[in-house]
């Protein structure tokens, strides 16, 4: 089963960045805090001018020194090609310029100009134009066509000499490193990323300003039908984006028309990644420097959410009946779920990055007791039963030969803990949903009940109830294929909770939640590591993250097993083996030896504690599935 653990930042880390101090003060939000900032950005917060990055291999100290090719990962080779100012000339002679990679600009100024696309009245010629469109999609057709299409998107003239710079950039671009164009961004205004844009009809500042706000968003997700109908967009309303949707649809179908699939391109510092899923196009536009593979995983998750709402047969049928179907209507009410997913991705999520989930760390015997309680009290029509506390998985009961797919769990967790739709209402919930990883053709029904942990503190003695925020509740999720089994599962909830309280498990859970994540120094006294992620491959599990490290280790042609990255703010390490993946960050003055030793210790710890940290197998019920248990095609 999936599960993950993440370390608390070490309080001993000493002179460390803002991010790290947040980590040590609040372990609940640690995940979010650190991952707002993809790791390669961590180092850049205080100094956007800094762009050096070195790659080393600590051969001597780590145990898997497989011949790496660190030179492929070097950011330095690509970061150099950045230009300070991008200027686009318009056909009307006016020009628009913006700082895309302002090496010499102070962060705040830089951001202002970055965000607001100031149009400058400038009659100068085109000789100052510099690269603004680059693409690493090897499938690109004749440059001129791309040029004109993109020109529409960006309001860029067709006749500027971008063609040459475009091809230059294609050559110089390291296909493994898509993070370079974000290298100098700073994140001082990141908190505005999630502010809602006003409705364009009521916004006072006029469309221009609204558009600039829209453009200032670092990440966009668009979903449209292949007929060009908008389905979902993270920011902005219809009238604001309809033009862009049209252009994007044109670009995509242009390639489709020539039996070629457009997978992604780069324009003006933004990476566009396109995924085509049956009748849908999903587009991610990011200035955050994630790799194509990572963006693709995010798009996949959004697609899964759509399937979860509709199921594949319904989706296909809607479009085969009427290709111009407006999918917004059947999807009505799903937008908050999509946006919650999108924002999780923008903030950064270790679970998404590593396709794994975090488990609550409790003793093996305690977990077994909870598992057996679930199993013992299991009602007839139960398919999956889950207990989740503090957003972390505690226990799972599942049918033989069916594990719960991490992407399904991600959808469920997103629905329950990121979007407010379910929790805010209070009470119990009965939710029809499709779990695409389990069966994308049918609906299942999920019983959800939140049991506040305060009650348990009263029962099981007091255990730091101050620490338990309101969100620390035990969620009981019971999934069945029978749509009328609500009352049956409700009964099961009652008996399970009763039993867990009687046998002390609730107390165990409450104190585990209150304890939070272990600090790195709890695990290894005196370690140099500040924060780490560990993923057990066998159980699809992890202990903590970092985007660029992940990109490096997982770059397609790389056989890299250990990646060591040094820069001014931190030293980071990624280590991948067939058994696990581990990512760690330490202070800037740490020696590689110390880091490697710590990494070894973490791995030893994780293995030793495996059954506490991870849910190994979960409780398996003896029943085997029959066809109707797979979910009904109609409600």
């Amino acid at each position, binding site marked *: 089963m999936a599960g993950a653990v993440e370390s608390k930042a070490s309080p001993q880390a000493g002179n460390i960045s803002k991010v790290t101090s947040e980590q040590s003060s609040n372990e609940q939000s640690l995940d979010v805090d650190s991952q707002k900032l993809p790791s390669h950005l961590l180092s850049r917060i205080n100094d956007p001018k800094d762009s050096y990055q070195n790659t080393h291999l600590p051969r001597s100290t780590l145990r898997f020194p497989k011949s790496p090719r660190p030179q492929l990962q070097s950011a330095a080779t690509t970061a150099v090609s950045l230009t300070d100012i991008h200027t686009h000339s318009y056909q009307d002679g006016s020009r628009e310029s913006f700082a895309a990679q302002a090496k010499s600009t102070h962060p705040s100024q830089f951001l202002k100009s970055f965000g607001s696309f100031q149009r400058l009245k400038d009659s100068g010629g085109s000789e100052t134009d510099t690269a603004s469109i680059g693409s690493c999609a090897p499938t690109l057709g004749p440059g001129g066509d791309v040029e004109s299409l993109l020109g529409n998107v960006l309001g860029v003239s067709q006749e500027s000499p971008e063609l040459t710079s475009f091809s230059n950039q294609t050559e110089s671009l390291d296909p493994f490193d898509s993070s370079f164009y974000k290298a100098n961004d700073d994140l001082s205004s990141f908190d505005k990323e999630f502010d809602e844009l006003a409705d364009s009809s009521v916004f006072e500042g006029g469309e221009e300003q609204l558009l600039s706000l829209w453009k200032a968003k670092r990440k966009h997700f668009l979903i449209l039908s292949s007929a060009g109908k908008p389905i979902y967009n993270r920011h902005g309303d219809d009238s604001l984006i309809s033009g862009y949707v049209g252009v994007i649809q044109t670009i995509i179908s242009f390639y489709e028309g020539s039996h070629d699939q457009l997978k992604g391109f780069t324009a003006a510092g933004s990476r566009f990644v396109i995924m085509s899923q049956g009748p849908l196009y999903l587009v991610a536009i990011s200035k955050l420097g994630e790799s194509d593979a990572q963006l693709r995983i995010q798009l996949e998750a959004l697609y899964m959410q759509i399937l979860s709402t509709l199921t594949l047969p319904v989706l296909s049928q809607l479009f085969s009946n009427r290709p111009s179907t407006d999918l917004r209507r059947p999807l*009505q*009410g799903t937008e908050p779920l999509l946006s919650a997913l999108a924002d999780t991705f923008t903030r950064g999520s270790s679970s998404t990055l590593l396709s794994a989930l975090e488990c609550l760390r409790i003793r093996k015997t305690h977990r077994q007791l909870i598992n057996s309680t679930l199993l013992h009290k299991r009602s007839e029509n139960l398919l999956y039963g889950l207990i989740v506390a503090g957003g972390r998985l505690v226990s799972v009961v599942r049918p033989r030969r069916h594990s719960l797919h991490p992407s399904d769990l991600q959808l469920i967790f997103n629905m329950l803990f990121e979007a*407010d739709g379910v929790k805010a*209402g209070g*009470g119990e919930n*009965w939710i029809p949903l499709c779990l695409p990883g389990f069966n994308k053709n049918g609906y299942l029904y999920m019983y959800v009940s939140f049991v506040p942990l305060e009650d348990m503190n009263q029962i099981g003695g007091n255990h730091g109830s101050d620490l338990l925020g309101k969100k620390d509740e035990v969620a009981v999720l019971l999934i069945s294929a029978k749509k009328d089994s609500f009352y049956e599962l409700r009964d099961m909830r009652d008996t399970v909770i009763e039993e867990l309280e009687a046998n002390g498990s609730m107390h165990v859970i409450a104190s585990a939640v209150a304890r939070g994540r272990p600090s790195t120094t709890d695990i290894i006294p005196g370690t140099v590591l500040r924060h780490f992620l560990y993923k057990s491959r066998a159980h699809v599990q992890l202990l903590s993250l970092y985007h660029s490290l992940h990109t490096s280790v997982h770059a397609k042609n790389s056989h890299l097993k250990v990646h060591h990255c040094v820069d001014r703010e931190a030293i980071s390490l990624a280590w991948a083996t067939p058994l696990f993946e581990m990512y760690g960050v330490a202070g800037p003055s740490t020696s590689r030896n110390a880091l490697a030793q710590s990494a070894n210790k973490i791995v030893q710890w994780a293995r030793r504690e495996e059954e506490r940290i991870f849910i190994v197998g979960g409780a398996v019920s003896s029943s085997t599935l029959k066809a109707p248990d797979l979910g009904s095609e*109609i409600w």
Partner: protein
Amino acid sequence: MAETTAAPPKPSSSVKLVLLGEAAVGKSSLVLRFVNNDFQENKEPTIGAAFLTQKCNLPHRTIKFEIWDTAGQERFASLAPMYYRNAQSALVVYDLTKPTSLVKARHWVAELQRQASPGIVIALVGNKLDLTNEQSTEDPAIHGDDEGSTTETAEAESDGDARKISTKEGREYAEEEGLLFFETSAKSGVNVQEVFTAIANAIPETQMKGARGAGAAGGTQTALGAGTERVNLTGPRGEVGAKEGCAC
């Protein structure tokens, strides 16, 4: 409703209530106001359905509402029978500022009359009264049982008044179909408690099922029996009832 402490425990019975209506008319907000006396701006849409309970004290008995708050989106419509089947009462909600929502409400009323239990008590509720400029001159006698209440207030003036469906229109339709009628604001709380109290009062004694606690013996066995025929869920539900009875 101050008599909760009266010496002999009042007979208590549970009433299943289902909320139906177009998306975003305020069904969940009405329930939240009734159950928690709370209101949330920009509440996210309900997914599937939520199940909540709340007691309503009447002078001579206590009603425990078992409320099914359903999602209004079109795709959930086919699930509705599961929730209104053997419900004794229904709240059909529309948005006073949105004409299409009354069309949808009429559709639900028709479906309930066709397919729900014959004796079901239906209340038609026009929500978002706070968006009309009536709320200041609020007239507590707006609800529909007593005739003669003043209704034409808001129609004439239209300064800042988002009302699109007149009280008269709603009331006349409700009278035609024999429904209780209220205009409410979940935001300000106007008339919310009244709706549920009126429903509790309108449910005939014989429709009560699953009497609990001290008054358990009562003449409610027949109704419970009738429930058994209709639903195959009765087994588990009976148990639930018993347990809850002990708890409260």
